[in-house]
């Protein structure tokens, strides 16, 4: 069977399983729809949380990013796992004890204010839609590369599947499909990683393999990689390029942002008790760590393999995957010195962000690139970091079924996260905006209907993002984490740990965090991208890490404003007492 047939088979079977599960677990009430009836086993919820959290970015992009960033890539590894410690210790059990349906619910009640609730809903919707745009791009890439269907058709198929199980199953349907999706995606990640680890180092555990010696040589893989990267003009693989303060702030912003993401928090509302919420966060991190500790191994293997398989080769002798991805438009080669050999080294190969191709072929048969070459360096190869995970099995020459499995895993990662986000958006609309703010008289049945309509609407918007992908997806990811860190996390944390924090303080804090962080990111990422360099940054902190400063500002402003205004009413301090008790 060909790769394409294998992929149809694997993706087809996985889709059939998702629909079957959705059919078996339909939502009957609003509680089913929003929080799966609060009856999910903590280990099952841990698995669902892992799939909910690990998106197309974690599955497809992260290992590739780390492969090119080296040690700087650690910000993602620590940032996207360390947040679970904060969740388990500081938020999840208390928010579960509070016992409502959504994150804005807590903010609205704790700060006795519908204004606070609506501000929280707006932050939530912005964060969640930002995220969805990235998932749809992931589905599009997988479909166009492996099934050779039109990207738009791929997006439509994906949306259709999510529609079936999210609209009918609600949180209940999503929870159990996410469990299936976790199993698919973790197999798809581990199988090729184990294969490659054995091929390169004879060690079947990738986590140990990338610290082992290479097959047939006494040299450690990372030492060789350090040597090769330095020879090609890069910083050594195991050294930082970014400044310490920037690495610190990015890691902190990602950690705090993770803990403040509404679609992750709401997963802990689905377990039966507050002590289950703690346990569940622990299991979630175990399931996540399985992928996150494998990813840096995949990165190191991929960087090594990549250099070995293309360096100083003639184009006609370049591997098949190199030409396949060139066809998709994620690899480009510009023969700067016209010697017919592929030369990969540090620096940008081309001027401009993305390659623009001409119709004709060049002297060696490559796709001609219209961009001017960047003549300040000798690098001739443009590679999009997103392809590393998908191309890795091909680079290592693994069997076809492994390649197909990775494709199915990428789709599972994207769909599970998209579904979790959709349900978060729709419950914020139907529950917080309609039922709690603007239409308090609707019955539970009507609310359930509205939440289904809101889900269908959100899927429609997400589909548009997939068909017309915004060019700024990568930039807005910094936005999502920065905002979660600087708006939602502080008010949730202080709402539990300070009885004195009042409505004025919380609203002022959220607004200051929002304006500062959003302003900084918009200034450097959208208005003046040419100024986005170390010299212009505040305290040399990049826009990716500024959410941490926004969080500190939010906390200080909240506390100061609260101490100058009257304390919250007695019912609120009693509520805080209540959620602190077992």
């Amino acid at each position, binding site marked *: 069977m060909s790769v394409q047939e294998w992929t149809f088979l694997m993706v087809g079977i996985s889709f059939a399983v998702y629909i079957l599960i959705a059919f078996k677990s339909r939502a009957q009430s609003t509680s089913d729809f929003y929080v799966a009836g609060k009856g999910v086993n903590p280990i099952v919820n841990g698995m669902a949380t892992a799939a909910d959290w690990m998106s197309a970015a974690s599955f497809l992009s992260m290992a590739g990013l780390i492969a090119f960033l080296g040690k700087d890539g650690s910000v993602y590894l620590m940032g996207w796992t*360390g947040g679970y410690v904060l969740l388990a210790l500081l938020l999840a059990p208390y928010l579960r004890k509070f016992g409502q349906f959504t994150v804005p619910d807590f903010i609205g009640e704790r700060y006795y204010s519908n204004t606070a609730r609506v501000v929280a809903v707006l932050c939530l919707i912005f964060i969640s839609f930002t995220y969805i745009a990235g998932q749809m791009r992931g589905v599009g890439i997988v479909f166009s590369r492996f099934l050779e269907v039109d990207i738009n058709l791929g997006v439509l198929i994906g949306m259709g599947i999510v529609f079936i199980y999210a609209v009918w199953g609600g949180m209940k349907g999503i929870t159990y499909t996410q469990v299936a999706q976790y199993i698919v995606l973790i197999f798809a990640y581990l199988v090729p990683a184990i294969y490659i680890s054995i091929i390169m180092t004879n060690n079947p555990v990738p986590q140990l393999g990338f610290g082992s010696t290479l097959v047939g040589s006494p040299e450690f893989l990372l030492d060789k990689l350090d040597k090769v990267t330095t020879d090609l003009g890069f910083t050594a693989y195991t050294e930082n390029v970014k400044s310490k303060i920037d690495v610190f702030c990015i*890691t902190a912003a990602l950690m705090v942002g993770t803990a403040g993401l509404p679609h992750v928090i709401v997963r802990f509302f689905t377990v039966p008790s507050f002590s289950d919420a703690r*346990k569940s966060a622990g299991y979630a991190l175990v399931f996540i760590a399985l992928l996150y500790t494998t990813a840096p191994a995949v990165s190191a293997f991929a960087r090594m393999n990549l250099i070995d398989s293309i360096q100083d080769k003639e184009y006609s002798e370049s591997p098949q995957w190199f030409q396949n991805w060139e066809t998709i438009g994620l690899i480009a080669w510009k023969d700067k010195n016209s010697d017919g050999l592929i030369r990969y080294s540090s620096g940008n190969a081309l001027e401009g962000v993305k390659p623009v191709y001409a119709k004709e072929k060049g002297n060696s048969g490559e796709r001609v690139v219209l961009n001017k070459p960047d003549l300040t360096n000798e690098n001739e190869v443009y590679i999009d970091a997103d392809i590393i995970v998908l191309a890795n099995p091909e680079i290592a020459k693994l069997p076809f079924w492994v390649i197909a499995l990775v494709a199915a895993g990428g789709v599972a990662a994207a769909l599970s996260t998209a579904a979790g986000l959709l349900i978060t958006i729709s419950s914020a609309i139907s529950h917080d905006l309609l039922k709690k703010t603007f239409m308090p008289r609707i019955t539970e049945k009507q609310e359930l209907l509205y939440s289904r309509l809101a889900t269908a609407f959100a899927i429609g918007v997400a589909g548009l993002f997939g068909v017309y992908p915004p060019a700024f997806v990568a930039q807005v990811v910094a936005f999502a984490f920065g905002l979660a860190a600087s708006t939602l996390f502080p008010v949730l944390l202080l709402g539990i740990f300070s009885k004195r924090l009042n409505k004025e303080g919380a609203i002022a804090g959220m607004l200051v965090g929002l304006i500062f962080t959003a302003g900084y990111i918009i200034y450097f990422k959208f208005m003046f991208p040419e100024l986005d360099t170390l010299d212009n940054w505040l305290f040399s902190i990049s826009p990716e890490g500024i959410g941490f400063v926004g969080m500190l500002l939010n906390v200080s402003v909240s506390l100061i404003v609260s101490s100058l205004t009257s304390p919250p009413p007695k019912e609120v301090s009693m509520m805080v007492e209540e959620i602190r008790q077992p």
Partner: protein
Amino acid sequence: MDYYWKTNLKILICLLAIWFLVSFGFGILLSDWLDQFRIGGFKLGFWFAQQGSIYVFIILIFTYVYLMNKLDKKFSKDREEKGS
């Protein structure tokens, strides 16, 4: 009640101090210095940044689960005794 909350805060502070030490400490601020030591093919600072900190995070959460379950049990027992 007061005792329960204060004990909880003490546990939190200890565990979060370790959380900070392994990630921001060993993985970032002290990372270059730790790189002079090695475990197998890893420089130690690099290992903490890409592997070790994650393993410690897991241990921290389960330690918290264990300690708090014990505290919850003690608390509910105390409350029963007072009630009767």
